[in-house]
C-alpha cells in the first residue's frame, strides 16, 4: 500500500461494505504542521495507523476534534498510548453536560432578558443608596467618612483647574457666537445677558456634570471594580458591612455636595470668559457687568443649582453602580469605567431635558 512520504501527516478515508468509515492515519504529526482535512459520513468509524512515524498532541487533538461526534468509534488498532490520550479527553468531556449553540432569536431574547436584569440592578442600587442614606441620617449606617473627606478633595478641589478652563472657554465661545449674531441687529449689548443666563441656568451645571462623569465616575467605577476583583467587597459583606453604605454613600455624598459648588464656580468663570470676548469687541467692562447682573436672577441661579445637585448625584451614582457590578477581570474593570462615563452623561442629558419641561411647567 502506498502512502504519503514520511514526514508529512496524512489521513485517508474509505467506506467499508458495512458502511463503516475506515480512516488511515500516518506520517509524522507535530504541532507546527498543517494537518489533513477529513470528512466522515455516517456514525461509525474505525481509525487505523499505517506508517505512523511519530506524533505529539497534534494527533490526539485532531482525532478528538474530528471524531468526538461519531457514535461508534473504533480506535483499537491505534497504538495504546494514542488510544489512551484520545479516550481520556472523551471521558472527561462526557462527564460534563454538553453546551448548547444559541440561535439568533435566542441570543436576542437573552440580550433582552439581560438588559431587563441590568435595569433592575440599577434601580436596586438606587434603592440601596436611598435606604443607606436614610440609615445614615438615623446614625445606623457604617459609612467610611475617611473616603468622604478624600473625595471632597479629589472630586472637588482637584477639579477646579479643569472646571475653570472649560467654563472659561464655554463662556468665551458663547460670547463669540452671540456677538456675531447680535451685531446683525445692533443688539451686541445683550451678549452679556446671553452668556450670563446660559451659564447660570444651563451650561455651568451641564459642563460640570460632564466633567464629573469624565473624572469622577470613571475613577469610582475603577476603584470599586478593582475592589470587586480582589474580593474586598465580599470581605466587607462577610464582616456584616453593607458595601453600598460603606463605599458608595460617602462618594455620592461628597460629589453631590461638590458639583453644585463647582457649577457656581464654572458659571462665574464662564461669565468672565464671555466678558473677555465682549469687551475686546463692542462693549465696555461696565456695560457688560451691568447687563450680566440684571440677567442673573435668583430663579435662574436656583435652576442651575438644582440641576447641579442632580447631575452630581447622577455622576457619582453611575460610577459607584457600574463599579459594584463590574466583572471580576481586568477587562471588566475597564468596561465598568467606560460604561460609567457613558451612563452618567446619558442620564445627565436625559434629566436635563426632563428639568426643562418641569421648570417650564412651574414657570421657573
Amino acid at each position: 500500500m502506498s502512502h504519503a512520504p514520511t514526514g508529512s501527516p496524512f489521513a485517508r478515508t474509505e467506506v467499508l461494505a458495512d458502511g463503516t468509515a475506515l480512516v488511515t492515519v500516518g506520517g509524522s504529526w507535530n504541532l507546527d504542521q498543517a494537518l489533513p482535512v477529513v470528512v466522515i459520513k455516517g456514525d461509525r468509524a474505525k481509525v487505523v495507523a499505517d506508517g505512523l512515524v511519530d506524533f505529539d498532541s497534534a494527533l490526539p487533538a485532531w482525532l478528538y476534534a474530528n471524531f468526538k461526534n461519531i457514535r461508534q468509534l473504533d480506535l483499537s488498532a491505534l497504538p495504546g498510548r494514542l488510544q489512551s490520550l484520545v479516550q481520556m479527553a472523551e471521558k472527561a468531556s462526557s462527564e460534563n453536560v454538553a453546551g448548547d449553540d444559541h440561535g439568533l432569536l435566542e441570543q436576542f431574547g437573552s440580550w433582552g432578558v439581560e438588559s431587563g436584569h441590568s435595569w433592575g440592578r440599577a434601580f436596586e442600587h438606587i434603592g440601596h443608596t436611598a435606604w443607606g442614606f436614610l440609615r445614615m441620617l438615623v446614625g445606623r449606617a457604617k459609612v467610611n467618612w475617611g473616603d468622604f473627606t478624600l473625595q471632597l478633595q479629589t472630586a472637588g478641589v482637584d477639579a477646579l483647574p479643569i472646571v475653570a478652563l472649560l467654563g472659561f472657554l464655554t463662556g468665551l465661545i458663547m460670547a463669540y457666537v452671540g456677538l456675531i449674531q447680535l451685531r446683525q441687529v445692533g443688539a451686541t449689548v445683550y451678549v452679556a445677558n446671553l452668556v450670563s443666563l446660559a451659564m447660570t441656568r444651563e451650561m455651568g451645571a451641564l459642563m460640570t456634570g460632564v466633567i464629573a462623569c469624565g473624572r469622577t465616575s470613571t475613577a469610582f467605577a475603577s476603584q470599586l471594580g478593582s475592589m470587586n476583583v480582589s474580593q474586598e467587597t465580599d470581605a466587607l459583606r462577610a464582616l456584616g458591612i453593607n458595601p453600598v453604605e460603606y463605599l458608595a454613600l460617602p462618594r455620592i455624598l461628597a460629589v453631590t455636595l461638590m458639583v453644585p459648588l463647582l457649577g457656581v464656580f464654572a458659571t462665574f468663570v464662564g461669565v468672565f470668559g464671555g466678558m473677555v470676548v465682549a469687551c475686546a469687541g463692542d462693549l465696555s467692562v461696565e456695560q457688560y457687568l451691568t447687563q450680566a447682573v440684571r440677567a442673573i436672577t435668583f430663579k435662574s441661579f436656583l435652576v442651575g443649582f438644582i440641576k447641579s445637585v442632580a447631575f452630581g448625584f447622577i455622576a457619582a451614582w453611575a460610577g459607584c453602580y457600574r463599579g459594584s457590578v463590574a466583572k471580576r477581570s481586568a477587562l471588566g474593570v475597564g468596561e465598568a469605567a467606560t460604561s460609567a462615563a457613558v451612563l452618567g452623561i446619558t442620564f445627565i442629558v436625559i434629566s436635563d431635558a426632563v428639568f426643562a419641561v418641569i421648570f417650564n411647567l412651574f414657570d421657573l
Partner: protein
Amino acid sequence: MSAPAAILTCADLAIGHGEMVIMDRLTLSLAPGKILAIVGPSGCGKSTLMRALGGLDAPLGGRTTLMGVDLNAAEGKERQDILRQTGFLFQGAALFSSLTLRENIEMPMREFLRAPRKEIRQLAEYKLALVGLADAMDKLPSEISGGMAKRAGIARAMALDPAVIFLDEPSAGLDPMSSGRLDDLILRLREAFGTTIVLVSHEIPSILRTADFCVYLDPDTGTMGAYGPPKSFLQAGQPPKVHAFFSQARFD
C-alpha cells in the same frame, strides 16, 4: 547501557528571598521522563526551589541546568528556546483574567506555533478536554471555581507539549475525583510524550502514586532532608522527621 543524560540538574544550589538564604547545598539530577515531587513543611521553600529549577528566579548560589543549558547564564534566544519547552502551573493558576479559558490556552500557541487558526483552536479544545473543561472553554476565569482554574492552568502548561512541566500544588483545591484524574493525566503525559514533571505537593497519596523521586526539604537544617523514591520514605531507616512527615500526612 549508559544512563540517559539528566534533563534537569542542580548543584550546590542556594535559594531564598532577596539576600536571605532559606535553603542551600541542594544537589540533584533528574532523567528525562521522570516525575520528581518536592515536599516539606509549609514555608520551607518548595515553590522557590521549583522556580529556581525552572529558571524563573535566579538562585543565590550554585548552578541549575535545564536540558543541558545553564539557564542563569543563557540569554536571548537560547534562554527563550529552553523556556518554550517548559510549562508552569502556578499556585493561583495565574490565568489571564480578561481571556476565556480557550483563549488562555491558545495564547502561547499563537505566539509560538505556525499552525493555522483552526488547528490551534482544536488543539486548545483538546487540551481543555483532557483536564475535563471541554464545556467551560468559553468562560472567563472569574466565572469558574478555584479547582477548575487549576485544571485550566495545567492545560495551559501543557499547551506546547513541553519537555518539562512544573506544577505548583496541582491538586490543591481539587475534589478527590478530580485529584485522582489529575494523577492519571500526569502519568499518561509521561507515558505518551515522555514528559518530565516536577511538582510541589502536600498530597502524599498522590505523590506515592505518581512520583519516581521525592526530595524532602528540611527547614531545620536548611537543606535536603532526604532524596529518593517516595515509597522508601515510609520505610524504616529514614530520618525520623521525614518518616513522620510522610506517615502522618498519608493518613491525615
